[in-house]
């Protein structure tokens, strides 16, 4: 079995190596991907079309915003699936833990976390809000935000974190994030454009169509941030307790 697997891997490897001879040279500005009109359009027109200085965010949240909407949905699905599978599982999971963790939260740790958490959260907001100007965005900001709640759960216990962010509210917030994203798209649909055509938002907001794209990108990033924050924490809470939502790490 191992030998067959090895031969298969070798075959695929040789196939991939064979394809490399046909690749454009490393960093070649004339390669199809770099010189294609699509890439050139992104480079030349991002500023004109959207007024967003960060090209990557413009591609992610506007030119290919539909992909990103479904990536957010994928995050939502992951949380939903893990939560629903683990919750109320078979009886065997309720067995006693091998060791009982029963001690007071450590003074040094909790006080350090008390200081750090607000900083992390403000930094998360910064990353999220500056996504279209500098590197960052909804996914990164959301992960930092979610991590702050996980840090609370790790340094006190899960109950303390759940008191601040109950598991039911996680899914409400996550769904809300998708509603924000798809809702912005829908609004532009109702205003006479295509789905996710943010420029049409200029009809109801006192900005130019380009600035409407700029602001709508911030809007969808906020939606992404909501979903990612909530699902990050929900995944941690579900997985660390086998879905029981008590004890935990």
């Amino acid at each position: 079995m191992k030998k067959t697997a090895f031969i298969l891997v070798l075959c695929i490897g040789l196939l991939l190596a064979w394809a490399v001879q046909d690749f454009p040279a490393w960093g070649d500005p004339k390669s199809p991907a770099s010189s294609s009109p699509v890439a050139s359009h992104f480079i030349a027109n991002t500023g004109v079309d959207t007024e967003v200085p960060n090209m990557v965010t413009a591609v992610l949240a506007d030119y290919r915003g539909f992909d990103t909407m479904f990536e957010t949905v994928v995050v939502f699905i992951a949380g939903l699936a893990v939560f629903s599978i683990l919750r109320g599982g078979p009886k065997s999971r309720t067995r006693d833990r091998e060791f009982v963790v029963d001690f007071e939260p450590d003074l040094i740790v909790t006080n350090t976390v008390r200081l750090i958490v607000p900083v992390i959260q403000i930094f998360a907001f910064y990353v999220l809000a500056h996504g279209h100007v500098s590197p960052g965005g909804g996914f990164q900001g959301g992960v930092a935000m979610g991590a702050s709640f996980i840090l609370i759960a790790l340094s006190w216990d899960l109950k303390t974190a759940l008191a601040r962010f109950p598991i039911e509210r996680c899914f409400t917030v996550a769904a809300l994030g998708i509603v924000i994203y798809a809702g912005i798209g829908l609004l532009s649909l109702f205003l006479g454009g295509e789905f996710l055509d943010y420029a049409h938002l200029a009809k109801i907001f006192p900005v130019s169509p380009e600035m409407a794209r700029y602001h709508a990108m911030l809007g969808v990033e906020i939606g992404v941030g909501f979903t990612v924050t909530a699902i990050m924490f929900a995944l941690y809470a579900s997985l660390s307790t086998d879905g029981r939502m008590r004890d935990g790490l």
Partner: protein
Amino acid sequence: MSDSIVWIVLFPLFGAVACALGGAISKKICYPVSVLSMVATVWVSVDTLFQAIESPIHEISYILGGWSLDLFPRGVGIEFRADLLGALIALVVTGVGLIVALYSKVPVQRETPGKEPMYYGLFLLQISGLAGIALTGDAFNLYVLIEVAALTGYGLIALGTNRAAAATFNYIILGTIGASFYLLGVGYLYLKTGTLNMVGIREVIEAHGLFDSPAMQVAFVLVLLGILIKMAFFPFHAWLPNAYCHAPTTTSCLLAPLVTKVMIYVMIRMVLTVFGVEFSFESTWWTEFLPWLVVVAIVCAAVMALAQREIKRMLAYLIVAEVGYMVGGVWIYNYYGLIGSVFHIISDACMTLCLFLGAGIILEKCKTTHFNGLRGLFSKMPLTMIGFFIGGFSIIGLPPTCGFFSKWYLITGGMVSERWEYMITLMFSTMVMVVLFFRLIERIHLAVDESGKNLGKGHGDLGLTKQQTRFDEAPLSMLIPLLLAASVVLLVGVYNQEVVDQIEVFLQPFNLPTGVKYE
């Protein structure tokens, strides 16, 4: 509405979010919300199909975000394209989704009590993903939607019985490998063409003559390998039987008719639209090789189906065999084979739905789908059994069910291309299906047990008490969808010419060989 094409994806998406949000308040609203959103989805997909039929170029294009397509190669924004093939598949997906949503009331309450909001959320997102796959015109967007469909599928399957978790883990591993192969292939495509738009990629291949480029050939192999794993083509089928067997009833009813079929659609889309006929069939070696693999696939799957003693597991192996039919229909490379393949996607979705709905009812009423527990079911649930057997007859290929006509085109295709091995395999597999279903009919109608011993006392006696054969039909919320599915099987069969006409309009521009050369 001119936007109906994007609403096909949005209605289930918003339905899912409504289930997740509203379910926190009251779990009772989930079922009506999902049925309503499915009704709306079917409505817009019918509308999209008619728009595509009426449009002069037989396709509608919708650019998300309103970006222009004037560049060459196109591909600045993401495009949704509904040609006749895509619109037909989208209608099949949403139609099956509606029927299963209607059916889901009783089984979901029994099998996943308290988890309805999550269940219906995943259910609707699954339909959103699959319908999106059928409509998207962008190779990377296709990957994202495949991920949506796959992840919801894992969640929906893992909610089943105890062994479902292990089966899902298998499925996750294999599904992820398949998706990675596809993604790697798309990466190679972008490297060589500089666009992700499906039509754009083909335009670049034709304009720059990339037919002999090694990177493009490897890209094709990777994409094809990924899709073959995802569609459970024979050597890669290992995830399918356990996953569909241990999944909750509603899940197997939704996934079994759709997932593998949609992946075959993706293969046809890749072959015809992305790589183009010339690249896929004429400049390469796999057209000789794949039909033989198909022969092995169909024979093995049919024999394994014969070895099963449980309805759901038997049906799962039947799906693997049917996948072989459709892959073969594409790779024998001619006009009739492709008509057969596309038509078989539609008819196989209908008949597999019919069979799984029937099996779900049997499981609900008898608590087992093992062959031993079937005796006397016809007197107990005559309507369910009629619906179930209409699906069975369609799998065998008896007229006037739709299975007969699609198989007819597949066999014609094999004959025209002089692929006798494929034709003989189809005939062999038809014989196996006859054995499978008539054995079931015997179990249900006659008084013989597993060893062939007669348990009854004389004519018409099943060896059961009055109590056991008392009329006890399934609840209406399950029976009506089954009969609906059965009538769709018959209607698609009777009106097969109308469906085939649309498929022919779609296939005409590709100049496939029709094989008439004896003049």
